[in-house]
């Protein structure tokens, strides 16, 4: 019974939010934009968390900066650019298409291409190497053998 209660409690539990009430903006529209931006910004301390998820003090500072920018009238991309200007495109959880990330974006296409070349080569060989049709005498011999079996 206690196990069931514990399970129910676990199911009802909600994840703790890193965004503190004091950080949140009064204007719900701005706050929604800030949350959306923060979800795409990498916490530079914990690396694979967004600043929206992270409890690191620096993530807090960056969340506050995003909100300050928006309050000051910046567009979403200007607010993001403010952080990119300081930490590089590394702060973006979704890597942008730029010279340094070409390999990242196009390597999968390259591998699919290599696979396609492999399949084409394989199929061509199979067609070329297919057995020639049986001559009339061979066919008769084969029929005779099969008859024998029955």
């Amino acid at each position, binding site marked *: 019974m206690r196990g069931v209660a514990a399970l129910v409690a676990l199911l009802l539990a909600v994840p703790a939010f890193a965004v503190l009430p004091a950080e949140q903006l009064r204007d719900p529209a701005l706050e929604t934009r800030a949350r959306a931006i923060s979800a795409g910004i990498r916490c530079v*301390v914990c690396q694979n968390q967004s600043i929206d998820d992270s409890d690191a003090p620096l993530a807090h500072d960056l969340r506050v900066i995003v909100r300050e920018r928006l309050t000051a009238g910046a567009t979403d991309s200007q607010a993001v650019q403010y952080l990119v200007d*300081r930490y*590089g495109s590394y702060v973006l959880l979704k890597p942008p298409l730029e010279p340094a990330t070409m390999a990242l974006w196009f390597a999968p296409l390259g591998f699919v291409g290599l696979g396609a070349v492999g399949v084409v080569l394989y199929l061509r060989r199979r067609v070329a190497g297919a057995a020639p049709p049986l001559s009339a005498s061979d066919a008769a011999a084969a029929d005779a053998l099969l008859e024998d079996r029955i």
Partner: protein
Amino acid sequence: MMRALFAAPVALFAALIVFFAYGLTQDPSHIPSILIDKPLPRFDLPGLDAASPGFGSAAFGSPIARGEPKLLNVFASWCAACPQEHPMLGRIAAEGTPLFGLDWKDQPDAAKTWLAQLGNPYARIASDPGARTGIDLGVTGVPETFVVDGRGRVRYKQIGPITVDDWEKTLKPMLVRLRNEA
């Protein structure tokens, strides 16, 4: 032809192994600084108390007013790796390299107590309790050390404590080079 076809996936796999092995030697916490070869962002900060002056980006020289290459070390009294780096900083200062300290996300009083205990290797200290100057510099943690040339441009960023090896093989030769360049 056949052999080449069988060898291709093996070669590809070997190439991937080399690629991943190289990846494993890289420390993901070392985020490359985008400030390299760019001028220090502008700042002007107070010292730890009214009696001790802070410094600003102007202290590092500019294209017009060239100075000496300097080190800008980001530290904090709460930082666990900083005491480990501290003797090295003392040696660097003693060897004659101007060492500027940025006390980041820290209470000035805590930093003063900390420096009173460990000794103060810094020529000047700037206090950045609000973290904004550190963020302008792209600081991700402490300690970090920037090599700034005589024109006020960032030339290198060391992430984590400066080891004897870092100093002797990287930073010191770089400072010598920058001095000759100026």
